């Protein structure tokens, strides 16, 4: 099943066609989502429609639940002991929390990039990129090499590492490691990419590269990025959601949020009155 999906995805990519998901329906729709850590509630009845092939930013002060929210979008939240979720998350109209679904399948369709770059330290650069394919059972060497090359090219890392693909992924700089992690997420050809503060451990130059990359990725993927950096949200995002104390306060086009917020709380946050 995965391989079929990869074939089509590769086909579309190599033909250089336009976005593969053009529809009026939201790619991901969050309905009445609440999340808990044990008895402690972290999210309260979130409703959010994430548009296909757009970048959606989630902003808000520390501890407001923005990381929890995106971790609910690919069922990573439930990996935390005692964590639980109530509500629905629809991917192309189907609930990812549906009874018969395997979280692993969901996570292949909705990839994730973490705050701290986390390449597999015992794998080479090339093996890191194709880890998702290999550990999901794809053995064809030519195909793996091709996928590694294409994914590294897509994050502009290929030219920097092409002569040392056998080196450990951990030997790269922080910014390169993060691009490696993005390449690793892209290699399994997900439909949605979640990024949890992907630049917070990086210097400004590396941050600029990643932001540029995010803007390019939306041609093919739906991107959701959590950031504590409002400038970053205004630079990369088409839509922005503002969260506070586990609630979604306001969600609109980024320009509207930053130039003409409807909620007083949003305005106070983006003008730096609290945070």
């Amino acid at each position, binding site marked *: 099943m995965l391989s079929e999906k990869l074939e089509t995805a590769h086909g579309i990519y190599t033909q250089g066609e336009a976005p593969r998901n053009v529809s009026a329906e939201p790619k991901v729709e969050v309905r009445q989502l609440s999340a808990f850590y044990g008895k402690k509630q972290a999210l309260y009845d979130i409703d959010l429609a994430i548009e296909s092939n757009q970048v959606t930013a989630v902003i808000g002060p520390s501890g407001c639940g923005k990381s929890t929210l995106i971790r609910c979008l690919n069922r*990573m939240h439930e990996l935390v002991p005692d964590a639980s979720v109530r509500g629905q998350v629809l991917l192309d109209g189907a609930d990812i929390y549906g009874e018969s679904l395997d979280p692993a*399948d969901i*996570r*292949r369709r909705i990839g994730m990039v973490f705050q701290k770059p986390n390449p597999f*330290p015992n794998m080479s650069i090339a093996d890191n990129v194709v880890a998702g394919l290999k*550990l999901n059972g794809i053995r064809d060497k030519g195909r793996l090499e091709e996928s590694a090359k294409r994914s590294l090219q897509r994050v502009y890392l290929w030219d920097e590492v092409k002569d040392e693909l056998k080196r450990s992924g951990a030997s790269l700089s922080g910014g390169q490691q993060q691009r490696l992690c993005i390449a690793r997420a892209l290699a399994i050809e997900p439909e949605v990419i979640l990024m949890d503060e992907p630049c917070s451990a990086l210097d400004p130059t590396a941050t600029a590269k990643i932001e540029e990359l995010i803007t390019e990725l939306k041609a093919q993927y739906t991107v959701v990025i959590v950031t504590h950096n409002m400038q970053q949200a205004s630079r990369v995002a088409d839509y922005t959601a503002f969260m506070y104390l586990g609630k979604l306060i306001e969600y609109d086009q980024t320009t509207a949020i930053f130039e003409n917020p409807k909620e007083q709380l949003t305005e106070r946050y983006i003008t730096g009155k609290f945070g």
Partner: protein
Amino acid sequence: MKSRRFFMDKVLISLACLSVVIAIVPLASILYYVTVRGLPAINLDFFTKLPPIPVPGAVGGLGNAIQGTLILVGLAACIGLPFGVLSGVYISEYGRNFYGRTVRFLGDVLIGNPSIVVGILGFTLLVQPLHGDNLAAGVFALSVIMIPIVSITTAEALNLVPNSIREASAALGIRKWRTSLLVVSNAKSGVATGALLATARVMGESAPLILTIGISTQWYSGPTAPLASLTYYIYYFGTSGLQNWVDLAWGAAFLLIVMIIGINLAVRLLTRGRRAYA
């Protein structure tokens, strides 16, 4: 000014150094005496011949005991290591719940369990029903001793692997069991260290062997027959009062120590230059 603190500092450092010397003296003297008394007994006959008859001047070796120890420890490792590693994986990767914590607690208790008690277990389960000492009972006892050691050291090694690796793997849609293998491969030198140390530990066991595998003056003769071992021969020949037997017991002690030091050196080599959590 030379203060009281300066004085206390010197006193405590001196005490610490003195303790080190006191701790090392017995260890060094054991190594010294075992080498001085045991090394002369080591020759080709020692490895290839059967034990001599109890007559002054009779010559022989402990070939059967060396063979027996290798077979016994080898088989015990074949059973104990897989069970130990897998239960360690369970404790660390799947056991974040009541069952996992219970297994972990039992493992800790079993590590402190006197090995003679395990010997009694082997005696009851395998010696009595088979009407006599036998290799299977010995293998059983030693693998029971190994399992909790390997299990706990494996769990500890896996616990040191950062959670970000598990998350990275899960986020790629990699299934739980495959993720667990990835975690193990990131901690393999830690897991191997535990396995080797547990092997070295049971190699030196003697109490459970007296109750299970017994002793034999012959070569290996089947899984349900008794079998010779170095540790039992150290006890048997060492307390015999016969000069040629006592000499062989020293030789056996020397060989055993060399083997255990060898395993520990292998551990050192394995863990040299390892990553913080490997």
